[in-house]
Structures are given as structure tokens and as C-alpha cells.
């Protein structure tokens, strides 16, 4: 399956971009996307560390790391928030 990632806040800074596409095996879950990002060659160490603190959203809803992904999914990568 192919999904689109969107990076927000400091995650975008560490990734050096606002988003990217990621290809994963069918049946992949959010935690598999995190694993793929964190273990691929060239992953910035800051991003790898930040992913541990991030929340994830699919279709404008926060999801757990065991949530199922699907082809065409838009996965938001949301670092800790600091509004107000």
C-alpha cells in the first residue's frame, strides 16, 4: 500500500519537508509506518527520537499505534503540542 505522510511542527523541521509518500506491505499498521521511517537509512536522528513522542491521525481523528493503515491513507505525524 502507498500512503502519504504529513509532518507537523518540529517533525517537519527534523524531516526537512512537510510530507512524503511511503510504501508499506498490505496489512501494515501505524507502528509499521513508524518502524519504516525510523529504521530506514538516512533517517535524521532527531526525527527518529521525535517519532516516539508523536501522535498520529487518520482522516482527522487521532489513532493508536495499532490502527490499521490502508492504500491511499493520509497519515498525520503530530509532535507534542504547544498552543496557548
Amino acid at each position: 500500500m502507498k500512503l502519504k505522510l504529513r509532518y507537523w511542527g518540529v517533525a517537519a523541521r527534523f524531516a526537512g519537508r512537510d510530507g512524503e509518500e511511503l510504501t508499506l506491505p498490505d496489512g501494515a499498521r501505524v507502528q509499521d509506518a513508524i518502524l519504516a521511517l525510523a529504521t530506514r537509512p538516512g533517517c535524521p536522528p532527531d526525527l527518529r527520537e521525535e517519532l516516539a513522542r508523536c501522535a498520529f491521525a487518520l482522516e482527522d481523528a487521532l489513532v493508536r499505534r495499532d490502527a490499521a493503515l490502508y492504500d491511499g491513507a493520509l497519515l498525520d505525524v503530530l509532535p507534542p503540542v504547544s498552543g496557548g
Partner: protein
Amino acid sequence: MNDLSDLSGSAPQRHISAQPLQLEPLLAETERPECGAMALFAGTVRNHHEGRAVTHLIYTAHPSLCESIIAAIEQETVQRFAVDSCRVVHRIGSLGIGEVAIYAVVRSAHRAEAFAALRHAVDATKHRAPIWKEEFFPDGSSQFVTGCCLAPDGATEPGSAHAP
């Protein structure tokens, strides 16, 4: 940037604004004849953080998620504290020192529940709305302020993002 490009062409935003926040419409919208109390919080941009001078801020937000989460906070505040109305609006984009970053308004019959509800609405927005603050310093550098983890299953240990 994700935040601004997503705003164009989307539905009107009730809870985030790239323009300077307007207080009068919030007061008019929440006015109720049965209310004897109106509690207001305004969060403004300060010129320092942890001992460093700050020149300005940039707030970014996930627009659609922010809208639904702040709407839920308003509703929950009204229900939990039995107040008559609650509105929260947060600014995004570049803000200078002294500009208003957030307005929260609560109206109720009496002041005690208005104060308590207001505090809840502001704290919940800070902790749960997908908004990020980037502070800029006199040397031109910037950093994102460390904040609250939104993950419903909590953060994993630092450095163990790859753990199953």
C-alpha cells in the same frame, strides 16, 4: 507549509484564525440574558522564554483536527461546568510581542463556575489542540516549544520509536 495551504478553499474557521483575533464578535456571540458572569482569558505573546529574549512567534495548526478538537473542548466545558456558553479561538501565523494568541470566553449565571470553566477551557486547549509554537530569537534562530503529547496510547520511550 501545511497549515496555511490547507486553509485556502476550506470551510470557514471558527476556532483558528490567521488574522488578528477579534473580541467583539466572541462577546456578541456568547451573550445570554440569563448570564450574570462573563469570564475572559486572553493569552498574549511575551518577549521572553526561559531567560531568552523572544522577538516573535509563529503558530502552526492542523486546521481540520484543530477545529474538531476545540469544538469538543467547548462542548465538554459547557457540559462539565454547567455554564451557558464557551468559545475558544486561537491565532495562527506570525505574531509580534503583545499580540493575542488565544481568547477564551465563558458565560454563566454566576462567577464561580465561569472562572472554573474558563480555566478548564484554556488548559484543555493548550494540552489537546494540535497547535505548535515556534519561538524566534534576536539572533534569527528559532525553536519549537516542547509541549504535550497527544498520542491516545501515550508516548513510547525516547529512542524506541521502532519498538513494536
